[in-house]
C-alpha cells in the first residue's frame, strides 16, 4: 500500500479517493467501475468493428460507382455544406445576440432556439411541414406570392438539415463569443472601430476556433440527418434522397450496398473528428 502506482487491485473496498489523496498520481482502477466501463467501450466499438469486418471490401468500388450511390453522396455533401453555410449566416449573428445581451428574454430565446437539439427530428420535419408546407403558416404565402413550393425539393433538404444542425453551431459559437475578451472590443472602439467592424475584425477572429468547431459539428449533424429530411423533403432519387436515406433503403434490397455506403459515412465522421480534435479542446482562444 505504500507504493502508489497505477495498478489493478482486486479489492473492491479500495477506491481511488481513499488510497491516493495526491492528485499527481493516476487513480487505481477498481472493478465496479472497470467492468461497466469496458462493457460500455465494447458496446460502442463492436458495431463499428462489425461494419468494418462485414464490409464488402472487394466489391466496394463497384457498389459505390453504381446504384446511385455517388449521386446520393454528392447530394448529401452539397446539402450538408449548404445547410452549414445557412447555419453560419444566421446562427453566428444569433449566437452574438445570445452572448452579448443580458435580458431575461435572452434566456427564453436561448432555450427555444436550442430546442431542436433535443427535439426528435421527425417532429422537426412535421413542424417544418406545418410552417413551410404548401398550406403551412408561411408556405401558403410563399406559394401565392412567389409561386414557390418548398417541400419535396433539394432546398427542402437544406432547410430540414439547417433546422436540425443550426442549434449545434449556435451554442458552440455562443460559448466562444462569451469567452472572447470584451476588453479587446473596448480597445477597438477607442480606436475608432464601430460595432460591426469590431465584430468582424476583432470578435470573429478571436472566436475562430469556436466558429470552426461549430461549423464542423453542424456539418456532421446535417450530413447524418434522416428524420426531418424524409418527413419534410421526402425521398426522391437525386433530388432529396441523401446518403442516410439511401443506406436505409438499400438495407431492404441490397445489404452490401448499405454497408458500403455506411462505411463512407463512417470515414467522413472519423475525418470530422480528426479535424475537431485540434480546435475542440480550446474553443475561444485566439490562435
Amino acid at each position: 500500500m505504500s507504493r502508489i502506482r497505477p495498478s489493478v487491485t482486486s479489492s473492491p473496498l479500495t477506491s481511488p479517493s481513499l488510497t491516493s489523496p495526491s492528485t499527481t498520481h493516476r487513480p487505481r482502477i477498481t472493478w465496479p467501475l472497470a467492468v461497466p466501463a469496458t462493457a460500455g467501450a465494447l458496446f460502442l466499438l463492436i458495431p463499428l468493428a462489425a461494419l468494418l469486418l462485414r464490409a464488402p471490401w472487394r466489391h466496394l468500388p463497384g457498389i459505390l460507382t453504381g446504384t446511385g450511390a455517388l449521386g446520393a453522396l454528392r447530394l448529401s455533401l452539397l446539402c450538408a455544406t449548404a445547410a452549414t453555410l445557412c447555419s453560419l449566416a444566421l446562427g453566428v449573428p444569433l449566437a452574438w445576440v445570445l452572448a452579448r445581451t443580458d435580458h431575461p428574454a435572452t434566456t427564453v430565446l436561448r432555450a427555444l432556439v436550442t430546442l431542436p437539439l433535443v427535439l426528435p427530428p421527425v417532429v422537426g420535419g412535421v413542424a417544418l411541414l406545418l410552417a413551410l408546407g404548401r398550406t403551412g403558416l408561411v408556405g401558403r404565402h410563399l406559394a401565392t406570392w412567389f409561386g414557390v413550393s418548398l417541400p419535396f425539393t433539394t432546398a427542402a433538404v437544406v432547410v430540414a438539415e439547417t433546422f436540425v444542425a443550426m442549434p449545434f453551431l449556435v451554442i458552440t459559437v455562443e460559448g466562444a463569443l462569451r469567452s472572447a475578451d470584451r476588453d479587446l472590443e473596448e480597445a477597438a472602439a477607442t480606436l475608432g472601430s464601430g460595432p460591426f467592424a469590431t465584430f468582424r475584425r476583432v470578435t470573429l477572429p478571436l472566436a475562430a476556433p469556436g466558429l470552426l468547431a461549430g461549423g464542423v459539428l453542424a456539418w456532421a449533424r446535417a450530413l447524418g440527418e434522416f428524420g426531418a429530411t424524409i418527413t419534410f423533403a421526402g425521398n426522391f432519387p437525386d433530388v432529396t434522397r441523401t446518403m442516410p436515406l439511401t443506406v436505409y433503403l438499400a438495407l431492404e434490397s441490397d445489404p452490401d450496398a448499405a454497408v458500403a455506403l455506411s462505411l463512407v459515412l463512417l470515414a467522413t465522421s472519423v475525418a470530422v473528428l480528426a479535424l475537431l480534435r485540434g480546435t475542440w479542446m480550446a474553443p475561444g482562444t485566439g490562435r
Partner: protein
Amino acid sequence: MTDPGTTLEIRTDIRRGTFHLDVDLTATPGQVIAVLGPNGAGKTTLLRIIAGLQPTGTGHVRVGGQPWDDPAHGVFLPPDRRLVGLVFQNYRLFPHLDVLDNVAFPLRARGTRRHTARTAAAGWLDRLALTDLARRRPATLSGGQSQRVALARALAADPLVLLLDEPTAALDAHTRTQIRAELRHHLSSFPGPALVVTHDPLEALLLADRILVLEGGHLVQDGAPAQVSRRPATDYVARLMGLNLYSGTLTDPTTGRVDLDPAGVLFAAGYDPHDDEPHPAPPAGTRVRVAVPPSAISLHTAEPGPGSARNVWTGTVTGLELLTDRVRVAVQGPPDALVDVTPAAVAALHLAPGLPVWLSAKATEIATYPADHDPPLK
C-alpha cells in the same frame, strides 16, 4: 500648439453605491496632466468617461467646444466616434494581429486601404523604434515593447486627446525608467491635451506639467509639479512627496505661530500661498497647512541650547527605516514627525525605539500655506 480647437472640458458627478466621482477639469492643448491618486480614487473611471466607455453621470465632456457627452442635451458620442487615444494599463493589443497590423488598426477602422494604413503604421513603428518587431505577435513581446506598441497604436489614430492609464505600472524597474523617458518625449510633442493616470509620484513629476490629485473621487489638489511636491494639500500627497504635513490655525501672524491639530505648536517664518512672492500674513485664526521636510528637523538627546532654533519640542522614537544613504526616524510628538539623519548619527545618539529625544527645526525652513481643502488631516 495653442489651437483652441482641442481644449478638453470635463465635468462629472457620478455616485454608484459608495463610489463617488466629482471632477471639474479643463485641459488645454499641449498640457500634460498627471492624475495622481490611490487605488479606487476614480482615476481610471475618469479616463473611461472621457473615452466614452462609460457615460458621465451629470455634467459633460467637451472637446474643442464640441459636446461628446452631455446628458442634459441628450448627446452621447460612442467611443468609436470620439477622437481619443487611450493606452490601457494592460495594453490590450489584438493577439490575432501582428505589431504592424495592430498599429494599422485605427486607420483600417476608419476605412483607410490596407496598403496605405500599413505604410502609415510603419511610420509610427519607426518613430517608436519598433520596426524590428513589425511582424511579431503581441504574445511574443516584452512589457516595455507592448507598452510602445500600445502607444504607437493610440497615436496612429491621430487623436485629439491622449489618455494613458498607469503606463508603467506593469513594467520592471529598469524598463520603467526607459519607457518614462520615451513617454516624456512623445507626450511633449503631442499637440492636444494628455492625461496620465498614475499612483507613482515620481512618474507624475517626470511626465506632467500639471498634477491633479484625486482622492475618494474628489480633486484635492491641482497645481504645477513644484507646487504639489512642496505644498501638499493632503496627508496622501505629503506621504508620496516625503514631507511632514500638519494642519492648524495661525494664531499669531507676527511670530508665525501655528497651533496644530490636535496638539503642538510650530513657528513658521513665511507664508506663501502660491509658491511665489512672500505674501503678507493673513489674520489670526486662518486655517493653514505646514509642510516640513524630514531633512529640516534635527534630533538631540539633550535639550538644545537656546537661540539655535525657534521650534524645539520633545518626542519618543517609534521606528527607524534605512533609506539608501539616510535613516528615516519616526518620532512621536506632538507633533509627530519623520526626521532624516545620517547612519553615523543613529550610532552616535544610540537612537532606538522608545528613546526620548528633542527635536528642533528652524522657522526659516518651515512655510505655511492656505488650507484649500480643509477636511482636517488624519
